[in-house]
């Protein structure tokens, strides 16, 4: 590119001289080589300056995506408040800026929604020897595959599984994490507040920090990881300020196969169990203090040609594994869901997706319904750069 710019400059500078030479063809040479040489030197100098400026600009990069959606939710009721996922809405409108220096990087990501603009990422990265780095600030939780690895713009079923939604709510948290890679093995983990970006406005209510991390392996055809989270939550709303565990354990595996002539096939599975959800309010009361649950999913993905992809997922989600259904006959212990999505890519920036979700009640109390009547159809157009 830069050489083309110089060539253009040179052509522009030399064109009058060439035209003049043509007009005086046959006459004595009209172009003084010293003048041409001076012009070339001048252009070379300008080029060198431009090159320095361009090198500086190359350190700054922008990326982002917008997801415009229409959703239909079975049995949606508006009398008690508008459902969050029904009709037209903007799921994400993200803009990310990163500036890379010799010793580090700064990253800022904003999520703009009709009612607010929020900071989703804001961290400083210090580059360390051996390719390691330290990130300090608001960043992605280093846990699991759906949250720790996959961007919201690349979700196979448009939404993460219910287990991730509960125990990794908000997906981002404030803390300090170390990144390291040794061949096929990588690690990301550190100390975090543990409340997530949504809980207590991202702030912690006590001095106890949570240890969160994921150890991953990438063997090409097979990738996977083990994740752990250990922390504590103080219930300031109780007279005794009781302390509860906030723990999660996760395992994930992804297999990529070249089986069919129509395109690649991927099988992905993840299991997550947790104690105490991420708090939704200030003060550290938290959510479902001490309550244990788990969830898992298995997804089959099939590419069809260069532009199409189909995904099918089955998931199970148990919010409280100790729920006594005999004592709570109206409650549901486990929710199973089958969902299917179709994606069509227009070039490399635009993706049209259509998804259908069918949740079903599994273990339930005697009087609870089998069908939660919460089927959902979603159409989404995503633009990404």
């Amino acid at each position: 590119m830069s050489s083309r710019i110089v060539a253009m400059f040179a052509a522009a500078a030399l064109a009058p001289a060439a035209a003049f030479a043509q007009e005086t063809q046959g006459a004595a040479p009209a172009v003084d080589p010293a003048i041409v040489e001076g012009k070339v030197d001048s252009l070379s100098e300008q080029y060198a300056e431009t090159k320095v400026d361009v090198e500086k600009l190359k350190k700054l990069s922008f990326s982002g995506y917008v997801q415009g959606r229409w959703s239909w939710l079975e049995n949606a009721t508006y009398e008690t408040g508008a459902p969050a996922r029904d009709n037209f809405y903007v799921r994400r409108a993200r803009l990310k800026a990163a500036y890379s220096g010799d010793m580090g990087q700064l990253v800022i990501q904003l999520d703009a929604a009709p009612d607010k603009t929020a900071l989703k990422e804001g961290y400083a990265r210090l580059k360390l020897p051996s390719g390691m780095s330290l990130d300090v600030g608001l960043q992605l939780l280093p846990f699991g595959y759906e949250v720790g690895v996959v961007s919201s713009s690349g979700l196979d079923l448009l939404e993460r599984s219910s287990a991730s939604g509960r125990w990794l709510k908000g997906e981002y948290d404030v803390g300090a994490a170390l990144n390291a890679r040794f061949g096929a093995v990588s690690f990301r983990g550190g100390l975090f507040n543990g409340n997530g970006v949504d809980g207590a406005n991202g702030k912690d209510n006590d001095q106890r920090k949570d240890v969160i991390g994921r150890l991953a392996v990438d063997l090409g055809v097979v990738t996977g990881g083990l994740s752990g989270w250990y922390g504590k939550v103080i219930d300031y709303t109780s007279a005794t300020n009781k302390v509860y565990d906030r723990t999660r354990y996760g395992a994930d595996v992804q297999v990529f196969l070249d089986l069919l002539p129509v395109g690649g096939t991927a099988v992905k599975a993840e299991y997550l169990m947790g104690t105490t959800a991420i708090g939704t309010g200030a003060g550290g009361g938290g959510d479902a203090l001490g309550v244990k649950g788990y969830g898992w999913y298995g997804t089959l993905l099939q590419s069809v040609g260069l532009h199409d992809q189909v995904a099918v997922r089955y998931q199970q989600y148990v919010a409280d594994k100790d729920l006594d259904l005999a004592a709570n006959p109206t409650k549901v212990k486990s929710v199973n869901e089958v969902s299917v999505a179709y994606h069509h890519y227009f070039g490399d920036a635009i993706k049209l997706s259509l998804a259908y979700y069918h949740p079903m009640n599994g273990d339930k109390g005697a009087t609870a319904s089998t069908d939660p009547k919460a089927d959902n159809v979603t159409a989404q157009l995503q633009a990404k750069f």
Partner: protein
Amino acid sequence: MKRIALAAAAALALAPAAATAAVTVKGSDTLVILAQRWSENYMKKNPGKKIQVTGGGSGIGIAALINGTTDIADASRKMKSSEMEKIRDRFNILPVETPVAKDGVTIYVAESNPVSQLTIQQLHDIYAGDVTNWKAVGGPNAPIVLYSRENSSGTYVFFKENVLKGDDYAASAQTLPGTAAVVNAVSKEKNGIGYGGAAYAKGVKEIKIVAKDGQAYAPTADNVKTGKYPLSRNLFMYTRGKPAGEAAAFMNYCLSPEGQAIVTQVGYFPVK
């Protein structure tokens, strides 16, 4: 109504296939002459088959493989893990690497330049801007004029990794849009130095490179094949998954005895 909808769906599904009947090959400028020769000969032998070859650099070819706009990416460097991950994430499949020729990244100087060999360290110092006069490496007392490639070039990346050991190129290095341009510039600049594929070294002098055993090796067929030449490398074709259909047929031709004979004719070295 249903039949009309089915017919429309079938037409939509088949339209892209018809439009992409030609096999597209994009990428490395080092490989472009060789790929064009392969394509011309293949199409002569297989009338009706169409192979479209374009250059631009290894990075451009790999980017095209990632965004689905080429069937084969030519590359004079290995694909980065981040690039492989992008293909895997987008197409649920791993890229497959096929070495199709061998090359020795050749250091060119003007034919009048008395310097005949350099160590990797000397090359590093020259291209990092630490050595700026030929006198420091046994040449005349004259400034060294550096020619380099654009950063989309696989040769640029290979040279940066293997000679500069990751350090930056000197700011004074002039980037040119192809190996032919580098050779042309060096042939006209008596104090110039450049690098590129062995097949392009016409009208310039090739520099021998001192290996770890202390011997200086020229980028000859034997030295490149045996790996004695320190800047030996493979040239690759990358596909999304195992090569299939017309792309596989073309690649089989490139690796056939006839295809590998063309490698030698063009100035590179066969892998078989």
